[in-house]
Every structure is written in C-alpha cells, then in structure tokens.
C-alpha cells in the first residue's frame, strides 16, 4: 500500500490542512508520499519532506500549477495516481475542486470528506449535514479520498526526512486563467486550525458589532467565525462561515454568540470539545449542544466577558 497526499500550499509554505491529511494517510497505512505541484515552490517541497511520516515528496514545479487551477493539476494527479493505492486531498475548497476532476479522468469514484478510516477500503463520512454517519467501502482499484481535516490531528511539521523527487509537468490544457484573488487578511489564527473559535450570528445585528468579538478573540488567541445567517445578512464575508456549506471546525473551545443553532450551523461545529452558547433566547436550539449556556443579551454579555477575561489573566 502507498498513499499520495496532494499538498495544499501557496508556493511559499505548506498550508495546515495538508498536515491533517498526512495523518489520515498514516491511518490507512503504507508509505506516504506528498505531491507538491506549484510554481517556484521548492521551499514547500522541502517543508513537506520534513513532515513526520512522509517518505517521499514529488515536486512538479511549472507555471500552470502556480495558482492551484483544477484543470492542469487534475491531469498531473491522474498521471501520478496509478503508482499508488490511495490518493488523498484535504476537503478544503482546494481539494474539493481538484480531486473529483482527477477521479473522473481516471474513471474512479471518490469518497468525499471522510471523518474516520476503518480499513484501507472502508471509511466513515458524514452525510445530511452530519445528521448521519455512513460507513462506505470503495470497490475501485485506487481510492481517491478527500479528508475532513477537523477529524484528524495535524501531523508534526518536523521530524521527517523524505526524499524529494522532481517529476515532469503534465500537459497544460489552458482552459482557465487565474485573474486575481481577494483574500481576507487577519492577524488571527485560521478558522479551521484555531484552538478557540468565537462566532457571531444574526443576533449580532450588524457587521460593526462584530468588533465586540475582537478584543475577546485577541485575548484568547481565537479565530472569528459566523453563522450563515450572519453571512447572508452581509455582516461579514463568506469565508467566516461555519456550517454545512462553510467551514467545518472542531476547536477545543467554540463560543457561539447570538447564534440560534440551525442544523446547518451545528453541522460545522458540533465536534468542538467544549461549546459555549450566549443567547438571550432561552429556547434557542444551540443550548441543546452547549456545555455551558449563558442566557443573556449579548450586548450585555460581551463587554462583561472582556472584563472577566482581563481579570482572569
């Protein structure tokens, strides 16, 4: 058995979800190799080679791979996949975009968003927004899989000594061109890897009021998230969204502020270790999953929380 992990990176550094995917690869067993496809991305390959448990890094360094476009990258994955029993990518917008395209090129089914490895051909994956867990077996000769990163711990970034092997680029179909990006800039940790997440919902009433979460997030080293209702209301951009159609998080502590607890939001955070809910509506469904519930108007609770956290330093 041998597993190929498709690295997610920005040509300078390996992105966090790659490390969780390596852990899933180790759970399957066998040799773990990482494919780093990018442009001017040797530093990423070197970082991938240092990840504990990685035996080999395949480096494809060519301009078509600069921006992670699915069309050229899927051709490269399809060319490399036959040497492996499994190909894994994180179930991020990057992995979800490219891996099904590679699967279809190879006439293989894909198992999406696995949360556990039962055996090399059997996996658990959430369906219906996490309201049911399906145990599925893939009958295909190569298993193509995306990995729910919140369900696997990140592999240690240091400790490995993998060999780097350069591989040739595949054909460039030149179907799409990258024309720019508008990424949210934040000094705070990333939502999907933060140890603590504080999220606001419709109860925040405006985008301005999200500022009330900031000092608390800064004090706790937390990432800031939001419910779909808050995103739909235009309070914050979509990349804040936690839920079935946004990001799936499982931090040590999740603080839901002014969030009622719709099924589709719970799908994105119910695997958090400790959940705190702050809501003035005692009947809000979020309290049914919260370890600690505080029935209080958030505009009263947040300033006090800031104060108490200062005191608790």
């Amino acid at each position, binding site marked *: 058995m041998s597993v190929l992990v498709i690295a997610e990176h920005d040509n300078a550094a390996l992105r966090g979800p790659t490390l969780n995917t390596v852990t899933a690869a180790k759970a399957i067993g066998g040799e773990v190799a990482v494919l780093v496809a990018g442009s001017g991305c040797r530093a990423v390959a070197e970082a991938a080679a240092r990840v504990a448990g990685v035996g080999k890094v395949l480096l494809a360094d060519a301009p078509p791979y600069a921006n992670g476009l699915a069309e050229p990258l899927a051709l490269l994955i399809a060319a490399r996949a036959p040497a492996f029993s499994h190909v894994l990518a994180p179930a991020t917008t990057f992995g979800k*975009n490219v891996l099904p395209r590679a699967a279809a090129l190879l006439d293989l089914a894909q198992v999406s968003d696995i949360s556990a490895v039962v055996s090399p051909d059997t996996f658990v994956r959430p369906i219906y927004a996490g309201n049911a867990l399906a145990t599925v077996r893939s009958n295909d000769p190569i298993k193509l899989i995306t990995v729910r990163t919140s369900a696997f711990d990140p592999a240690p970034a240091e400790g490995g000594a993998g060999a780097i092997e350069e591989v040739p680029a595949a054909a460039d179909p030149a179907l799409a061109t990258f024309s720019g990006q508008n990424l949210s800039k934040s000094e705070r940790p990333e939502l999907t890897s933060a140890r603590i997440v504080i999220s606001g919902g419709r109860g925040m009433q405006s985008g301005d009021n999200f500022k009330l979460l900031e000092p608390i997030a800064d004090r706790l080293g937390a990432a800031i998230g939001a419910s779909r209702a808050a995103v739909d209301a235009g309070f914050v951009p*979509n990349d804040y969204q936690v839920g079935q159609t946004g990001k799936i998080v499982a931090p040590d502590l999740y603080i839901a502020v002014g969030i009622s607890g719709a099924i589709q939001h719970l799908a994105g955070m119910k695997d958090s270790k400790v959940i705190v809910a702050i809501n003035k509506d005692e009947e809000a469904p979020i309290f049914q999953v919260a370890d600690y519930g505080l029935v209080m108007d958030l505009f009263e609770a947040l300033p006090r929380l800031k104060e108490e956290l200062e005191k608790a330093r």
Partner: protein
Amino acid sequence: MKILVPVKRVVDFNVKVRVKADHTGVETANVKMSMNPFDEIAVEEAVRLKEQGAASEIVAVSIGVAQCQETIRTALAMGADRGILIETRVETQPLAVAKLLKALVERESPGLVILGKQAIDDDCNQTGQMLAALLGWAQGTFISKAKIGDGKAEVVREVDGGLESLVLKMPAVLTADLRLNEPRYASLPNIMKAKKKPIETLTPEALGVDVTPRIATLKVEEPPKRKAGGKVAGVAELVDKLKNEAKVI
C-alpha cells in the same frame, strides 16, 4: 446559447432526517422532498442569463425515480424551457451522474452547464467537477459571480481564504455557491404554464451509460449525541468554569 441545468430531488432542507432502524440509510418514505437548494440557485442563474439575452434555451435535467418529474416541474416553473428525466431506480453516484450528463451534453450541445456545488443529502460535492473532466471543459466551482462574455466566462469563486477570480474558456461547467443569487419563487401562472412544458424521459441504458454504484454503503448510523450541559448564572461563573472546570482558557 443553450444552458443545461441538472436538478436533484432531495429530502427538503427543513426536514430533520432520521436514520432507518435497520441502518441501511435515512428514512425517505413520507418525507417532504424538494429541489436541492444549490440547484435552485443554478436554475435561477440560468434564467437570469436568459433574461439578459445571454442564453436562448434552458434545459432542466433530473436523474432518478419517476417523482423527479416534480423537481423538473419546479425548474420549469422558475423559467426553464423543457425538461429531461433520466429514469432509474439505481442509486446514482456522482461519477455515474457525470457520465449521464456527458451523454446529454453530447446530444444537446449546450454552451454552459450550471449545477449546484453539492447536494445536501450525500454532501459529495463532485458531480460538476467530474462532468467538466469528462467533457474536457473548464470548471468554475463554488461561484458567487458569473459574467458570460464572448467565448469566455469570468467567474468569482468562494475559496477558504476569501474570493478568487478566474477567466474560463467556453463551453464551461459552473457550480453555484450560496451567494450567486437568491432564487425566485415561482408564480402561480408560471406553475400552471410549467405543466404544459415538455418533459422527455430517457434511461441510462438508452444513453449507453453503466450506472452501477462503485461505492457500497455498509451502514448508516446516528452521530453520537452531544449532551446539553448546564446553564451558568453569569459571565463570572462562565469564565471560572472555562478556566477551572473545562480548562480550555
């Protein structure tokens, strides 16, 4: 330009699903079924493109049991021109669906296929990407904006870190994210009119596509239930518990 819009019949998003007692799946008997919400957004986008003059005809396609006709009728009431039902009782998985759609694309020659980014039942998020691969077309997935121009589509994609812009060669496959538009409600006159629009019925066999599932579902279970904890009396107690009981801050 013709637009093909595949629509899936799924358990309505408001229904709280129940796992069957024999653990073979979730209960779908006597449960309200609706069009997959992301597919509604895809239909709406196609209708808007037609209203803007960028498209001439919209064909709504559904794959599954005979009742998928209702889902097609919903698309027709929103503004699609005609429907195609590929009728099968087999559980169609994304690769099989992509192959069926490819066969239809070859028959219908659309300039654009717009799908929902994922279905809210199996949450796979694969079909659009697979169809684009099989056709050798460009793909614009999880889009929140689309501008269709001369031989190209400019799209904005919702990615984990924010937004990304791409220019795609046409023909192309697009998959709709939530913020692409807000789907309209079909008016009563349009629902009546939709009843007269034609729906053609085909089968996977007629299209020469093998839809045998590649992935076997061994069992379906309820996720472990979270127990509700207690209420705290105030902020001071909350901070104390987080610090000394849960030890997370």
